[in-house]
């Protein structure tokens, strides 16, 4: 079974029940909910604090403390909140393990591990954990450093929410929205993670084996194979076939899957990442040349490494050598340092550099030559060093919190400046809404290296899974481009789709299981060749099952009958266990059978033909043997030695199974 807990196709959270284990696949946190909130300014913003309260059509003002209006949009004036994965669909304390595919897909982890009674283990690669920690640290830091007195909740009332304008009116499960977790919760959650490496086979309770594979999307990003001896489920989440910095995607290991769960495709299927990077560079150069500043709202890890590498090659030729680049984040330094120590998780070219030994990313040189400077925040050293025009990389891409809010307020009024959106997770128009009216130029260059639909169909042809399972969004064209039927998954049989809070039965059928035959038992078996190339042996053995592993052993020898003087009770002779005799097959040729009987001293054998076969009569012994094509019936008096003799003669003609 698969339980879908998140409706966001790139921030998935599914639970798989597979062979008596309960496995959560990713733990994505939908942060688009924060777009409904007002930004958190680092320094008092007169503009934001003067925004008018929202008034209902009938003039009632009871919500004007909670909701503010800006250029026709309504925002919640409160600490931003996130939309959690579904927690009611199944008891999350029964989850045995959580598999994380990349650092973007683990942001809901503290909510799951700290609030649901979860007692299991989380598996992730080392870069995923380290960079995931940085993302969480930045998130917690940017929200906690701007304490907000107000926590709005009245608007969440169902009766009230109905009256609100879109998109607030349509926001789903607002009662489930939660404030950000704290650093102690992050640390507690991360302490439950066990580090794994690519192609490491991890046994779960002896029943299931899980293996992370390189997915090519980010440092340490992985797809997962979940398999038993006879079923294989591949979980593909956030994969890329482009050569950027991470190790390339391992496609071959996905072959022979019974089920392939496909999530985390590109969010911008129509944009080519290379073209976007070129556009990014030229817009950046143009703005700076005209004396303006460039703001790049971004995450502290990931695409920023590639952007810095492009700029490293570009700035000299574009005459930007004297323009300062600033990277501002509480984790900027850590992110830049960490990127240099994961040689084993990098693409071949970068690995080779480490062997020299040189740092794999050229941003080390940018820092050394003072072209790139990093600061934990706009306060402190930065305010002394700050020179304009400049380029600033900072978070958060939602423009609702973090140092980016300050730069939006600072630079928004001048049309010389440009904000360039590179992260694909948030609609840039929604992100900008609370800053309107805006004089600053806005450029949208979303860079999403994850698989597009053409690559997906190639991949599926290559690895040929029996069934594909994916979020429902991938089974139809995007709502804004309903004519683009090429922007959906096309495969045979058609994919099974799921949506938030849905349970899906996965189509796999098991017919076999692994069992081990102990060497002593194996030695005792007597194989018989029944047909050319096919041998059979009947096995009678004791089955032991422990930790989901089955073992067959020799049956114990029957204990020696006690030689006591006491007369045994009748019931002592009752056969102890029930050793079933094997099945028989074959047929008995009457003539040969009669010959055999005669050879063994039966002189008065008489044969009668019947409709279906023969009857062999032993007159003296008053015994009758009915022989048919597939049955033999011996009818005799209670003469055990005779019966046993006849039985053994019959068995000579038959094969045992």
């Amino acid at each position, binding site marked *: 079974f698969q339980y879908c807990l998140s409706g966001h196709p790139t921030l998935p959270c599914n639970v798989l029940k597979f062979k008596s284990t309960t496995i959560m696949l990713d733990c994505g946190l939908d942060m688009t909910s924060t777009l409904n909130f007002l930004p958190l300014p680092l320094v008092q913003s007169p503009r934001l604090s003067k925004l008018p309260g929202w008034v209902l059509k009938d003039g009632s003002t009871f919500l004007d403390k909670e909701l503010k209006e800006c250029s026709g949009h309504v925002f919640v004036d409160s600490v931003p909140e996130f939309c959690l994965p579904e927690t009611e669909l199944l008891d999350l304390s029964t989850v045995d393990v959580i598999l994380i595919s990349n650092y973007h897909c683990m942001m809901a982890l503290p909510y799951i591990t700290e609030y649901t009674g979860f007692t299991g283990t989380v598996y992730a690669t*080392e870069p995923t954990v380290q960079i995931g920690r940085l993302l969480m640290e930045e998130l917690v830091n940017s929200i906690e450093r701007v304490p907000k007195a107000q926590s709005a909740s009245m608007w969440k009332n169902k009766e009230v929410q109905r009256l609100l304008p879109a998109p607030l009116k349509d926001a789903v499960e607002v009662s489930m929205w939660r404030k950000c977790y704290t650093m102690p919760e992050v640390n507690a959650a991360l302490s439950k993670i066990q580090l*794994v*490496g690519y*192609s*490491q*086979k991890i046994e779960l309770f002896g029943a299931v084996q899980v*293996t992370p594979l390189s997915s090519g999307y980010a440092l340490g990003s992985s797809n997962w194979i979940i398999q038993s*001896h006879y079923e294989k489920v591949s979980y593909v989440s956030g994969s890329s076939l482009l050569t950027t910095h991470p190790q390339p995607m391992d496609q071959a290991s996905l072959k022979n899957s019974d089920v392939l769960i496909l999530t985390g495709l590109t969010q911008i299927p129509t944009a080519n990442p290379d073209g976007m990077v070129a556009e990014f560079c030229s817009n950046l150069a143009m703005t700076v040349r005209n004396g303006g500043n460039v703001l790049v709202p971004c995450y502290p890890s990931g695409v920023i490494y590639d952007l810095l590498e492009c700029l490293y090659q570009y700035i000299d030729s574009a005459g930007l050598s004297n323009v300062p680049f600033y990277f501002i984040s509480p984790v900027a*330094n850590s992110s830049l*340092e960490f990127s240099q*120590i994961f040689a*084993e998780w990098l693409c071949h070219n970068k*690995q080779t550099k480490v062997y020299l*030994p040189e*740092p794999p990313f050229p941003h080390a040189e940018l820092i050394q030559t003072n072209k790139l400077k990093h600061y934990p925040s706009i306060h402190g050293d930065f305010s002394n060093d700050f020179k304009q025009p400049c380029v600033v990389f900072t978070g958060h891409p939602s423009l609702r919190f973090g140092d980016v809010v300050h730069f939006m307020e600072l630079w928004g009024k001048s049309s010389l400046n440009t904000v360039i959106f590179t992260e694909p997770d948030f609609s840039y128009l929604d992100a900008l809404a609370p800053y309107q009216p805006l004089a600053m130029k806005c450029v949208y260059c979303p860079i999403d290296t994850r698989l597009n639909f053409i690559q997906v169909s190639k991949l599926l042809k290559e690895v040929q899974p029996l069934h594909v399972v994916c979020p429902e969004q991938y089974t139809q064209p995007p709502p804004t481009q309903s004519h683009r039927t090429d922007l959906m998954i096309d495969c045979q049989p058609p994919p099974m789709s799921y949506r938030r809070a849905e349970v899906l039965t996965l189509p796999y059928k098991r*017919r*076999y*299981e*692994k*069992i*081990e*035959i102990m*060497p002593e038992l*194996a030695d005792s*078996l007597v*194989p018989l060749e*029944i*047909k050319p*190339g*096919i041998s*059979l*042996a*009947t*096995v009678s053995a*004791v*089955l032991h099952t422990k930790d989901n592993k*089955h073992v*067959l052993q020799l049956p*114990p020898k029957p204990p020696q009958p006690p030689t006591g003087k006491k007369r045994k009770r009748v019931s002592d*002779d*009752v056969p102890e*266990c*029930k050793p079933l*005799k*094997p099945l*028989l*097959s*074959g047929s008995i040729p009457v003539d040969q059978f009669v010959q055999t009987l005669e050879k063994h001293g039966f002189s008065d054998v008489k044969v009668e033909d019947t409709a279906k076969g023969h009857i062999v009569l032993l007159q003296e012994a008053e015994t009758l043997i009915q022989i048919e*094509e*597939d*049955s*033999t*019936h*011996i*009818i*005799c*008096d*209670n003469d055990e030695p005779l019966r046993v003799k006849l039985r053994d003669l*019959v068995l000579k003609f038959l094969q045992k*199974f």
Partner: protein
Amino acid sequence: MPEIKVTPLGAGQDVGRSCILVSIAGKNVMLDCGMHMGYNDDRRFPDFSYITQNGRLTDFLDCVIISHFHLDHCGALPYFSEMVGYDGPIYMTHPTKAICPILLEDYRKITVDKKGEINFFTSQMIKDCMKKVVAVHLHQTVQVDEELEIKAYYAGHVLGAAMFQIKVGCESVVYTGDYNMTPDRHLGAAWIDKCRPDLLISESTYATTIRDSKRCRERDFLKKVHETVERGGKVLIPVFALGRAQELCILLETFWERMNLKAPIYFSTGLTEKANHYYKLFITWTNQKIRKTFVQRNMFEFKHIKAFDRAFADNPGPMVVFATPGMLHAGQSLQIFKKWAGNEKNMVIMPGYCVQGTVGHKILSGQRKLEMEGRQILEVKMQVEYMSFSAHADAKGIMQLIRQAEPRNVLLVHGEAKKMEFLKQKIEQEFHVNCYMPANGETTTIFTNPSIPVDISLGLLKRETAIGLLPDVKKPQLMHGTLMMKDNSFRLVSPEQALKELGLAEHQLRFTCRVHIQDPWKEHETVLRVYNHLKGVLKDYSVQHLPDGSITVESILIQATAHSEDQGTKVLLVSWTYQDEELGSYLTSLLKKGLPPSTS
């Protein structure tokens, strides 16, 4: 019976030239390919002609595994792959792959450029050799081919050192390489799971040593260095460029900082800075503490330790110098040693093991007059100290690893015969497993007894486990099936399914026995009496009295009729199939004895 064969070509009852051949389930694997530091002739490399006389090595070996970058484990690799000729895969971890070629090049330079040897491997050969290397991650299962898989575990001995599990089917061998069971200043401790290999091949450098706590040794080391420097002496610490050097540098660096000392510390050879750079880039392979704090303070960026220049050796006043190589057998460490040996104020600290034949070994065994080249006699007046900082497991550590992995057999290499003998006895006593210690060229054969994995049909398994769930679990439940063997595939199915798959019909064999008993009662009363009797005796069986007047015991049918001539005699017809043979036979003999006298 399946067997595993092990032949050391080097490191059999010896330290140096590690090279061990393993044959397991038809696969041949070579573990390490080292050189011997005690020899300068043919004996420095393993004798590869042992593997095959005229065939190609590539055809004979399925893969080569290198445990770490020390030359006694990888020094013969370019000779082996490029001069003898091997084109198959060579496996090592990423740091080993990065550092190994540098040490090989260093070794080549000393041998060819300094000693003027010819017919040695070239720089190009080192490069070509490294192209055959496949880098592996820790814990990654590498499928060498369909059957053979290998897996690396952290060994802690030097940066990138690994233990390797070699597995074919359910047979497996673990080779430890060199390992360290206690974390040190820069590396973590070796770790392996309870993988229960058929054979554990362990190093045994410190087979008889049980070392005191690391902290004591460190304090001792610092005290000695400090005292020497205080009285104006010079301290020489011969080290290998990578490994102990970094650990001791960290130690001195922090001590100098804490004590605010001013005496200079130098590190010889250009390799240093490069070496430290490797540590920075592969910081994920160091210990937890360094990994945790590296963003704030990188432990491999030293403030007090500076590069050494040859001229500094004659400077007056105290100093501490780390110089390579570690066994004082050549190079800068030997040069400095010669310069400083005559002054009793100075001190040389040997932080690691020294192979026989080296100057290091000589002075450690108490020799104070050394014959140098040109018959010069060098008198050693400086203090000689030995402090075991080399990161090998001691006896306690080796036992601990055996406890962790639970092998069925143990084989010792990389140690001295006498010490091995002692440890071998200890292992056999404590773990009740066989322990071997073959000499070079001697083959040890270990018989394994693997169980055979087969596919069991789910139907059969479910049927049997359902029976197994009955309350009486003390009696072992027998399961019956038919093992079908076809083209090397083994499937265990129910007999019915086997017949069906082969397109055969079942032949039913049935017996019907007439049992005559004396019983004067009416027919139906006799039936009832038989029923009660059977019910009383066969408590564990299902005995039923059917409406049509017959009785069933399990699937055995019993009917009673009065004898046609004698109403007092009843004929019981007992009918069963061959599958119920035992019970049917038992019933007839039971009934033949007659019924107990009626109590009613």
